[in-house]
């Protein structure tokens, strides 16, 4: 892949990077697309599109157990993809990297597995006030069915997490802390280190929802060492329908499977089954092979650019947007901070986010409006929803300025 990165510490050649994304030249409502809905899903570079195309054109076969050449090649590609994912997240044993359908799938697998083994009635699970529904509902389902309790780490007045409250929330019954690494609505980064340290002291299982962190930040799972970590490829320049479930090595053998089927076994009789070891135990059925191949291509793209460079570039965009938005008295920003990952959430006073999003779309600017699957957070903030602009590596300061100019028009139209 041609990837020109100029001075890896400061400047990315964003114009060169943009050439990798065919969709960015698309016209929307007669205007050049400005895509600021990257928190929902990120656009795909040619390298990813080509990798998937290439897989289906030249290697497609079902994997594992096939004796023929194509099956062996497809299996190799799939397992290479696992190694690429492991290397990206600094995981020593690739078997700890399980392919899932995505973050939601991963959290459900963890919650169901723990519900079958560790969790008992009366046990408590600690979440944050800004969790995505996907990291609430699987736990809530268990709690409702089994008499469990969900406890919520509150936010401070600046909307950041009240880390000091955690030690008072932890009890002898706290079994799991499940937190997002980055709030999908506010973009705020959860301070994981103190949280993981506390969890370790109390022997609490840790689940990190990395869906919004992995696209923006370098994630070193060996250093973080949580029990579980999940993310989705499609938010990381990869295809939809595939994600990562990382688990600490001990869980590979002890976490009960949420689902089972072909591919997960060593031997089967009608009386009993001996299950496979490692990642395969959690990957029943034919996996999303092309997805895994595309995921690996996406990670190669991210690493060619440099994840730290991506973070730095996006942070510049967030800070620029935040700075410009603060000049507008009509704007209210939620989770105002310089320690954010790629996301800025705001409202126009006296305007519904739906109206703002509808008008921005007429100018070819794609933002997300609504509750962002964080209704408990919306209730806490006392609002129906927000307008969320979220950035990726291909976004530019010029786009941010264009967005601000058009937002001023929107303010005028709605005044």
């Amino acid at each position, binding site marked *: 892949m041609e990837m020109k990165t100029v001075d890896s510490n400061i400047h990315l050649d964003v114009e060169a990077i943009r050439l990798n994304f065919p969709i960015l030249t698309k016209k929307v*409502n007669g205007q050049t697309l400005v895509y600021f809905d990257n928190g929902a899903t990120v656009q795909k570079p040619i390298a990813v599109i080509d990798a998937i195309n290439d897989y289906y054109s030249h290697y497609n076969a079902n994997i594992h157990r096939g004796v023929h050449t194509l099956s062996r090649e497809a299996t190799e590609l799939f397992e290479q993809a696992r190694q690429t994912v492991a290397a990206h997240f600094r995981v020593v044993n690739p078997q700890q990297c399980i392919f899932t359908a995505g973050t939601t799938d991963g959290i459900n697998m963890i919650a169901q597995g723990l519900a079958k083994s560790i969790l008992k009635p009366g046990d408590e699970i600690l979440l944050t006030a800004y969790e995505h529904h996907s990291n609430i509902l699987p736990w809530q389902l268990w709690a409702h069915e089994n008499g469990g309790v969900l406890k919520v780490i509150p936010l401070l007045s600046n909307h950041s997490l009240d880390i000091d409250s955690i030690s008072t929330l932890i009890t002898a019954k706290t079994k799991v802390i499940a937190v997002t690494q980055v709030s999908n609505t506010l973009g705020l980064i959860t301070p994981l280190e103190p949280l993981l340290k506390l969890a370790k002291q109390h022997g609490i299982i840790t689940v990190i929802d990395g869906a919004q962190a992995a696209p923006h930040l370098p994630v070193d799972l060996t250093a973080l060492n949580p029990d579980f970590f999940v993310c989705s490829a499609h938010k990381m320049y990869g295809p939809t329908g595939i994600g990562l479930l990382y688990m600490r090595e001990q869980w590979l053998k002890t976490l009960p499977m949420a689902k089972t089927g072909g591919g997960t076994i060593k031997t089967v009789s009608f009386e009993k089954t001996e299950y496979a070891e490692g990642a395969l135990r959690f990957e029943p059925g034919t996996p999303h092979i092309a997805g895994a191949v595309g995921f690996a291509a996406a990670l190669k793209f991210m690493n060619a650019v440099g994840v730290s460079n991506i973070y730095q570039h996006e942070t510049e965009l967030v800070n620029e947007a935040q700075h410009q938005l603060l000049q507008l008295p009509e704007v209210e920003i939620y989770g105002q901070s310089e320690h954010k990952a790629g996301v800025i959430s705001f409202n126009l006073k006296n*305007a*519904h*986010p*739906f*109206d703002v999003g*509808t*008008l921005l779309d*007429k100018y070819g600017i794609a933002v997300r*409006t*609504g509750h962002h699957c964080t209704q408990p957070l919306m209730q806490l903030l006392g609002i*129906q*929803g927000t307008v969320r602009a979220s950035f990726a590596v291909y976004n530019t300061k010029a786009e941010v300025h264009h967005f601000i100019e058009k937002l001023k*028009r929107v303010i005028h*139209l*709605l005044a």
Partner: protein
Amino acid sequence: MEIREIENEIIEEFELFGDDWEQKYEHLIDLGRSLPLIAEQYKTESNIIQGCQSRVWLNARYQDGKLVFTADSDAIITKGMVALMIRLLSYQTPEAIIKAPLEFINKIGLKEHLSPTRANGLVSMIKRMKQEAVQHLAK
């Protein structure tokens, strides 16, 4: 006025703006602002039409053989669309409401508001208006 006549009136009104979508939306927003407020007592849970994003409240009453609608929305653009629908279907007979083709939305270039992904409650509102008409005929 018959529904068809009102539709033509709205189409003519929007033709003034040509391709200038900003003017068109300014007009839509003005229409939303001029929509008579629904009485607070009718902004009930049972009158709420939940879109994913903006909410619409719709109240229907039957008067002299005709259905009278009042409505509101928390989003002003949705409210503009609501105002157009009320102008068209309120004080009409149930038979006329059921038969109303509502092609004007396409002709004034606001078809996108009827797309299911808009999630603005408008499609559900039109459905509810027609349902009210059907229910009154069945009585």
